[in-house]
């Protein structure tokens, strides 16, 4: 007899309580942890509005942290993630702080000057987010080819898989636009997502599952199997992932890094994937403005 799994709505609420407890001790966090925190907060608010009440100083915390990020000049590590955080700030406060606004202007200039037809689709997420910030006009997704024969993808490396998933995300504008994606490719991506979960590569599985969702294939049996797996891997405290081996390895490599950074990343990946593969049409990039 199958046991009943918590519904995703409940999973989000439990995760938001865990998130609130994570930063309550006032300990400093790395920029990537802070970025992930805001993304997760936004996700929680969108998928379960009742969860937002557990974070009392959200607005001030976001301003403070984003200001701290710009001060440390660490924002260049991932422009897309930072732009996303800027959107989160704008969404929560209605306007950007001056420090963050300066960065967005720099990012706008940097993206506008880059032209590379071969990898235009790689810049698309930044352009898309800038448009959401009213800093750039809407630009339709660039032409980017998908593999005509998807068979070799089954044996391809992780970077190639991420690249194909990114192309699908761009072609479909994160699920907003229908695109002609071969059924065979989607079948292979579904199998690869399942293989990634067997290897406990939650990040890669998340990328592939979200690509399936953007392509309109989230109702498949394989996606449901994957969703059940992710829900099974939410811990009692609300976080996701049984990541003891990874946390131990990180502690050995980077002892000053907070071990929660591993769990935070996994929790973001799992909730993001659950939200975007749910029956209700939601896309983190598309629905934040």
């Amino acid at each position: 007899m199958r046991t009943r799994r918590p519904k995703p709505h409940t999973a989000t609420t439990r995760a938001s309580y865990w998130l609130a407890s994570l930063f309550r001790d006032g300990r400093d966090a790395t920029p990537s942890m802070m970025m992930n925190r805001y993304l997760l907060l936004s996700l929680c608010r969108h998928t379960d509005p009742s969860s937002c009440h557990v974070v009392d100083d959200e607005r001030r915390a976001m301003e403070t942290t984003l200001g701290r990020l710009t001060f440390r000049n660490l924002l260049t590590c991932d422009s897309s993630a930072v732009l996303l955080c800027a959107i989160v700030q704008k969404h929560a406060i209605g306007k950007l702080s001056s420090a963050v606004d300066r960065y967005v202007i720099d990012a706008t200039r940097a993206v506008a000057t880059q032209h590379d037809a071969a990898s235009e689709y790689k810049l698309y997420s930044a352009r898309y987010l800038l448009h959401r910030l009213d800093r750039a006009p809407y630009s339709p997704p660039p032409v980017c080819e998908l593999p005509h024969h998807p068979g070799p993808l089954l044996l391809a490396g992780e970077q190639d898989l991420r690249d194909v998933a990114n192309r699908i995300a761009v072609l479909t504008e994160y699920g907003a636009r229908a695109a002609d994606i071969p059924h065979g490719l989607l079948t292979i991506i579904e199998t690869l997502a399942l293989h990634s979960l067997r290897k406990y590569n939650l990040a890669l599985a998340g990328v592939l599952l979200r690509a399936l969702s953007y392509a309109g294939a989230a109702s498949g049996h394989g996606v449901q199997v994957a969703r059940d797996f992710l829900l099974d891997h939410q811990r009692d405290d609300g976080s996701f992932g049984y990541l003891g081996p990874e946390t131990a390895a990180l502690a050995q490599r980077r002892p000053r890094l907070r071990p929660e950074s591993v769990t935070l990343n996994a929790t973001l990946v799992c909730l993001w994937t659950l939200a975007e593969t749910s029956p209700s049409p939601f896309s983190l990039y598309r629905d934040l403005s």
Partner: protein
Amino acid sequence: MTTTRLDTQQAAMMVSSLDWLLANLDLFYPLRSTSSVDVERIKPFAELAFLCGIFAQRGRQTDSRLTHILDFVDDTARQPALRDRLIRQPATFLLYGTIYAALERSGRPCPPERHAIQTLIDNGYLATMELVPFRRMDLVYTLSSAPYRHPLPPLSVLYKDTLIYKLPSPLHVSTSDVYGITHAIFYLSDFGRVDVRTIMGDRFEATCRLLTWLLGIYTRASNWDIVGELLICCHCLRCKAEPLFGVSWNALINAQTSAGDVTGPYFDPRSSRLRKAHTAIQYRFAENYHTTLVATAACLLEIASRGIDHEDTEA
């Protein structure tokens, strides 16, 4: 990927693997001397005999390579040191019984062994052996295929105790679980000779889906032993979902070495045992014989299902 049709590639693969089996036939010989058995070689010998039985079922017993292998199995199985072990060590029935049942299916009856096996069945021991569900199916399949009279339940009933009947998640099954799944399907379908849709009922579609996922997963893992077995399962259920079926076949064909063997999951090309000639041959055989047998069977079943004239498989 070349434009050679898949069936031509499968025929070539089968010829090449049969040649490798023939070249290494002495390593299948299970007797250490005229009176003692090398226990490590009984399993490979039994599996070689089983392959002969599959060929015979598909009307391939006149294939010259197979005839040579079948003669070897027949002559060896009738050696006194091997012949009487079956009734003296009934717990080893699943190995020894396989050999003689395969010979029966291949048109090489062994009346003394038939009598011994029927005696074992009639005295009740085989029905009480402690076996996991798919091994119980193995026992019934062996007894039914020869055939021998037995009181055990039919395969369609035993199937309901197996893992595949319960449709586990593809994210939880281990490699040994998958072996149990593949073997249950082999026996239930008699390697594709029985249409199992009525037996499986509303589980059929989900079973096909699970097998297809596992096929993709194990192709990515380059486990050619499991890939071969899962391709046989796809044949058994007549469920060949593309593109995964074609991709996996191409990957298996490409995994065959120039010598004709297909590398097993634990074969290490950097093993120190490969540095010396005599240990290299033994190591390569031990690690690759099973995967090669499976690949050979997979090719045969696909070729036979398309009704390709057996002359096409001769070099």
